[in-house]
């Protein structure tokens, strides 16, 4: 057991990423502020990255690394677009309250 705690293995990283993922999902689901929702998304992406890197570390391939790289890039793009959208939404609805934006309903 102690051995399992002291030697840092794959599971440690997976655990961290699991927590990040859970928090991210929680934020995406529960928070009304669009910005915070975005932050949640970022958390999820980070969780994914950690997993990628961990797996590539522990079986010696480069794929995970490369994908992490791409994920970061895409995350940046996504953030930019998303924030722009948020700004537009704010322009239109005069609020960033996601729950008040339900024109998807009808």
């Amino acid at each position, binding site marked *: 057991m102690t*051995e399992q*705690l*002291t*030697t*840092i*293995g*794959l*599971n440690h990283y*997976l*655990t961290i990423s*699991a*927590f*990040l*993922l*859970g*928090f*991210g*999902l*929680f*934020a995406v*689901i*529960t928070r*009304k*502020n*669009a*910005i*915070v929702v*975005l*932050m*949640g998304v*970022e*958390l999820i992406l*980070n969780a994914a*990255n*950690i997993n990628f*890197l961990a797996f590539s*570390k*522990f*079986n*010696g391939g*480069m794929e995970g*690394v*490369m994908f*992490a*790289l791409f994920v*970061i890039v*895409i*995350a*940046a*793009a*996504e*953030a*930019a677009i998303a*924030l*722009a*959208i948020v*700004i537009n939404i704010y*322009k239109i609805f005069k609020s960033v*309250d996601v*729950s008040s934006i339900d024109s998807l309903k009808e």
Partner: protein
Amino acid sequence: MSNPTYTVIFYLFAAITVCSAAFVVFTRNVIYSAFSLLFTFFGAAALYVFLSADFIAVTQVVVYVGGILVLLLFGVMFTNSIMKVQKSEVINIIPGTLLLVGMIGAMLYTFYTTHGWMPSETLLQGSIVERIGFETMSRYVLPFEMVSILLLAALIGAAFLARFDKSSK
């Protein structure tokens, strides 16, 4: 690798990451969450270093901390009056909590009950910057180009979306 200091530092960063992430989610102030997100990113970067992906770590710091976080802060400042605490800003808290607990529990259960992971003996060692460059130019050149085009598109799109709209004035 049973170097104790190493272990301690790892746990330290892991704690920073997870706790700040939790703070991001649970605090009611957007500014606070934004700033604590900063710590999450740093923690993640540190963990990348542990995973011997130092280039990724640097990228993480540069892109996330230098770019995305600043963007988020701008967003916050555009949309809220600073330091203002918003009331009643959570919805469907129960399913959220359920999912949070359920997901995390389930995943941890999975991780620690399954012994499917069989780490290969050849671990990733040392700096991988050179190899990244090599892979980028050889095997992942097409995704690389696509991603660059995507970035360009995102850039233009963002500029277009957030442009100063005359008609709205």
